[in-house]
């Protein structure tokens, strides 16, 4: 069963790498915001994989709590980024 856990963890790492690549290489603002969110999803997946403790034991609750907190933070940050992007876009139209 350990292989399932490693598979999930590695997938998480790949998603982080993809998100990082997107955040660094994309010029468009919206794409970069989405890429950072993808990166966050990868980190959360890694944390969920870390929580697995085999079929007998229940999963470790601490990483789950971290993921929940992380999601809340990521949502608020994305909201702020989108609000700023909209503000910028609206001003562009005025010009």
């Amino acid at each position: 069963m350990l292989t399932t856990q490693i598979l999930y963890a590695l997938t998480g790492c790949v998603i982080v790498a993809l998100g990082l690549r997107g955040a660094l290489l994309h010029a468009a603002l919206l794409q970069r915001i989405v890429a950072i969110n993808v990166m966050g999803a990868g980190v959360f997946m890694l944390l969920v994989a870390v929580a697995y403790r085999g079929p007998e034991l229940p999963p470790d609750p601490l990483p789950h709590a971290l993921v929940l907190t992380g999601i809340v933070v990521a949502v608020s940050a994305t909201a702020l980024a989108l609000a700023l992007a909209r503000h910028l876009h609206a001003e562009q139209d005025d010009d």
Partner: protein
Amino acid sequence: MTDAMIGLVALPLAGALATLLLPRLATVVAIGTGLATTVAAGLLLFGFATQGALHYEIGGWSAGLGIALRADALSALLLMMTALVALAASVYASAYFKGTFERARFWPLWLLLLTSLNALLLSGDLFNLYVTLELLGLSAVALASLGGKRAAVAAALRYLLVGLLGSMLFLSGVSLLYAGYGTLDMAQLARTVSAGPVAWTALALMTAGLLLKTALFPLHFWLPPAHASAPAPVSAVLSALVVKAAFYLVLRLWLDVFADVVTAAAANLLGVLGAGAVLWGSWHALQAERLKLLAAWSTVAQLGYLFLFFPLLQALPPGAARELAAGGLVMLALTHGFAKAGLFLAIGIIQQRCGHDTIRGLDGTAQRLPATTFAIALAGVALIGLPPSGAFLGKWQLLAGAVETGQWLWLVVTASGSLLAAAYIFRVLGHAFGHRPYPSQPVTVAREEWPALLLASMAALVLGLAGAPVWGLLEIGT
């Protein structure tokens, strides 16, 4: 004294809510909160001096599951600096935002920023550090965008994206550490971490994220526009405190948690980046056309000096010489905090009185605003590192460490950086002294000039002349 630790987080948080609910009383509430927070920071410093390192578990939940607050010499001193700089900047902001419509938006965010800074400096757990880093980043970005001009919003957005990227890198390092060692408590990690692929990868990821946030060369590209387009009191706190919070974490990770994992090559890499920051930042500060850009580029350079200490601390064996170098590092960080905050406030005064902040247009500012010009000169003394400023003590220890370990390169970098700093400060002062009649009163705009003056003299005089108690406190911590 644990009450003081709770107060440092709870007071500004309560103040933030109060200013949101009572916008009419916001200024009074905010300055009252600033005073109360300063008292709490003073009590914490006193408590540390008498009882040594402090520890508190919120709600009685032990570290690992609950939120542990910790304070040692480094955090107690930085908390005190944060409280003083924030208080002075609050007094200044009460005049700066008077009668503007940004006022109601400013105070809640400002106090939230102070809350997250204090929480970050007190936190002993890596995940809580991630949360406080994000809170700090979000409130800092919102404050930086307050000007509402296109340049400010664009710079704030870039600041936000860079900050989020940094946080995500930090968080992936935190996940790796939890996977490897099953704890996020820094004290427990410091005991269990051993050199190996997990620790190296985690340290590399977390450091990369934090270097982005602390704007170490070559990851500094976002800092000058963001700090130069924010309102003056916000720029002061961003440059003096916010970038330093990320630096504080790098310091904690490299010297406390991962002390056994860090290699000489890695520490040298940080040193080389720091040297690049000193030279590149100072050079750009010298080229800057606007005062705020000059101050922002000077922040890039001054942060570089702090990173020059890493190879020295790595090479020095534990003992008196290493303690002195570590003390010099803290002294330099504290001095820069006060000096840069004072400089930004003074620049804000010039910008508001003269309607611009171009260096060429400064002609005669010394005659119109003598106290403001004096504040810039005092802050300049501290940025150059002339005696009797705290930066002189800090740089002296940097040079002593470089000689002691035979790392001559850092000595050359420090000397050239200081010369460049002298050049950019004297360039400003040269323009400021025109030939106009002197007014009868040096302090012309008291509520704004006194905070700037006090911060700058704290950096240039008090920290240098009364540096001994600070050193004493740092010795308790070891």
